[in-house]
């Protein structure tokens, strides 16, 4: 159980750093939803499945949709193939 928590936390921290460091907005958005998914796994481990479902549905699902919409509205909804 502890090793699972450790792996989840490391994945979350790595994706959170990725959100800050990635140059592609779409990749950063994907990394952001990985943070939310990791958090929902943590909630399941902490025996809070209701909170985990809310986190997965709102944090990873609806939040990412909202960010994707904002990216498209700002004209950043594309992969920049140059770099």
């Amino acid at each position, binding site marked *: 159980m502890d090793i699972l928590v450790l792996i989840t936390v490391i994945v979350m921290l790595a994706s959170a750093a990725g959100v800050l460091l990635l140059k592609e907005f779409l990749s950063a958005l994907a990394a952001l939803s990985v943070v939310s998914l990791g958090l929902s796994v943590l909630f399941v481990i902490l025996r809070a499945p209701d909170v985990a479902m809310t986190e997965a*549905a709102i944090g990873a699902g609806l939040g990412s949709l909202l960010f994707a919409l904002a990216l498209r509205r700002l004209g950043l909804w594309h992969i920049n193939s140059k770099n």
Partner: protein
Amino acid sequence: MRRIASILFLVGLGVLIAAIYQQMNLTSEPLVGRAINAAAAKQVGAANFVTAVVLGYRGADTLLELTILFTAATAGGLVLGRPRSGAARDPDAGPILLAGADLFFPLFLVVGLYIILHGHLTPGGGFQGGVILAAAFFVPVLARPGTSLDQPLVSAIEGLAGAAFIGIGLLAMLEGKPFLTPLLDRGDLGTLTSAGSLPLLYVAVGLKVGAELAGLLAQLAATEASD
């Protein structure tokens, strides 16, 4: 510079959380969890005792939560406004999102409805299932920006669901009980028709949340295309 500042912020937040974790006493007995868990199955009849708290013991809080969501969605809708009729729309998304939207629509629909209907038995419920329903109806709009949701229908579903929630609460008052007291037979613990009026309340919550968020997101998506 900004990147360094954000990493510094991240490190600071990590230190703060670590300090809080040090102070927390994780091994102590929960204060009320055990007592509610023991009483909820008999009093409310819901196998998922989070639902017993959300709709049975604290139904008025849930109604306020819905009100907050409604107010936020209304304010968002007011700010967003409507696009001009002749305004240019974004082109359709790529093949992956188009195929994904078609493939996942029925899956999202079934999962969302399942979570709403089993809210009193398994983790989840109206809020989580409603969000999944909203995503089911919104992803096709994201894939094909030319299409849009039937906004009057969405508003009607939202209004009727909210009215149903309050109506079920008022029915309890007709019988001389406090507002939002669970009605009907509690049934057998763990079956789909157990927990009295709680599944009906969760269906109303799910439809309201789903219609609200789907309408808001579709309105957000329907604003004019950027140049």
